């Protein structure tokens, strides 16, 4: 692999290995109820950072498509949304499991939980929209416009509403972000690399998926040309 072009993939690998090793072996503050599950911070929370980053990439490529009309941008927008939703689903599942053993239930009507679930539904609708339009350009244009709305709704449901209501999540209910009570300096040393590592892993998967999709497009177009000849 070309290291000058793909250095960030190496960085992602190193950060993730660091996360897994320090995530289990590193010291964490002792907390009631949470106990050792506080380590989920390195694995559950970065899923959401990854999802938000990938959905942001998706909407950027959607807007680029609307400006320039290049089919490649639509492929990137689609694959970024796909990878983002995958990470979001992993976040939902791991969060549900974590909630079972700390809050005592698989699901609570917590603002953030419901907001995340609604976000997933909004993005499922994105793929349903894509699947229901035959014409390629129309499909790309419609879904790009839809994804702008979807992204804004995601911001509202995941980042704004949970801060306005009381939530079981730390850092919510008028106190945005992780405060010094939630995260000590030792955990930060693992948490920030973990977030970057998981985001880069998501971008890496997006990169591979998009390249595959582009080749698929070329092969299909070649077939069409062959038939026309």
């Amino acid at each position, binding site marked *: 692999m070309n290291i000058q072009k793909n250095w960030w993939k190496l960085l992602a*690998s190193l950060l993730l*290995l660091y996360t*897994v090793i320090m995530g*289990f072996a590193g010291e964490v503050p*002792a907390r*009631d109820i949470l106990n050792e599950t506080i380590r989920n911070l390195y694995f559950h929370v970065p899923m959401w950072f990854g999802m938000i980053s990938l959905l942001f990439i998706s909407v950027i490529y959607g807007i680029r498509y609307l400006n320039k009309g290049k089919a490649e941008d639509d492929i990137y927008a689609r694959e970024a949304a796909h990878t983002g939703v995958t990470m979001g689903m992993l976040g939902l599942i791991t969060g549900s499991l974590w909630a079972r053993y700390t809050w005592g239930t698989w699901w609570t009507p917590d603002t953030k939980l419901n907001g995340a679930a609604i976000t997933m539904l909004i993005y499922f609708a994105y793929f349903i929209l894509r699947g229901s339009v035959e014409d390629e350009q129309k499909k790309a244009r419609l879904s790009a416009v839809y994804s702008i709305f979807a992204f804004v709704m995601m911001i509202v449901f995941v980042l704004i509403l949970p801060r306005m209501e009381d939530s079981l999540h730390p850092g919510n209910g008028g106190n945005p972000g992780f405060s010094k009570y939630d995260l000590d300096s030792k955990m930060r040393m693992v948490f920030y690399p973990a977030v970057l590592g998981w985001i880069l892993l998501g971008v890496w998967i997006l990169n591979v998926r998009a*390249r595959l999709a582009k080749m698929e497009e070329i*092969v299909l177009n070649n077939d069409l040309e062959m038939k026309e000849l």
Partner: protein
Amino acid sequence: MKKLFTLFLFIFLSVFVSAQNNTPEMADSLRASGKIYVVVCVAAIVMAGLILYLVTIDRKVARMERELKSRNKPS
């Protein structure tokens, strides 16, 4: 006087006992001697394996890209 003394003793003891209960249970001793590093190694190997897998997929895609490029050029 003796009663008062026992009272203070019990208050002191109760504080002492509750102070012990105040520290949440953590796997501190497990990390010291409970072979937790085996788990760390296993998790690291799993992560490394997944990353290597992704690397091979990535290289396969890159190979296909080159192949497709060289095929499309002459025509």
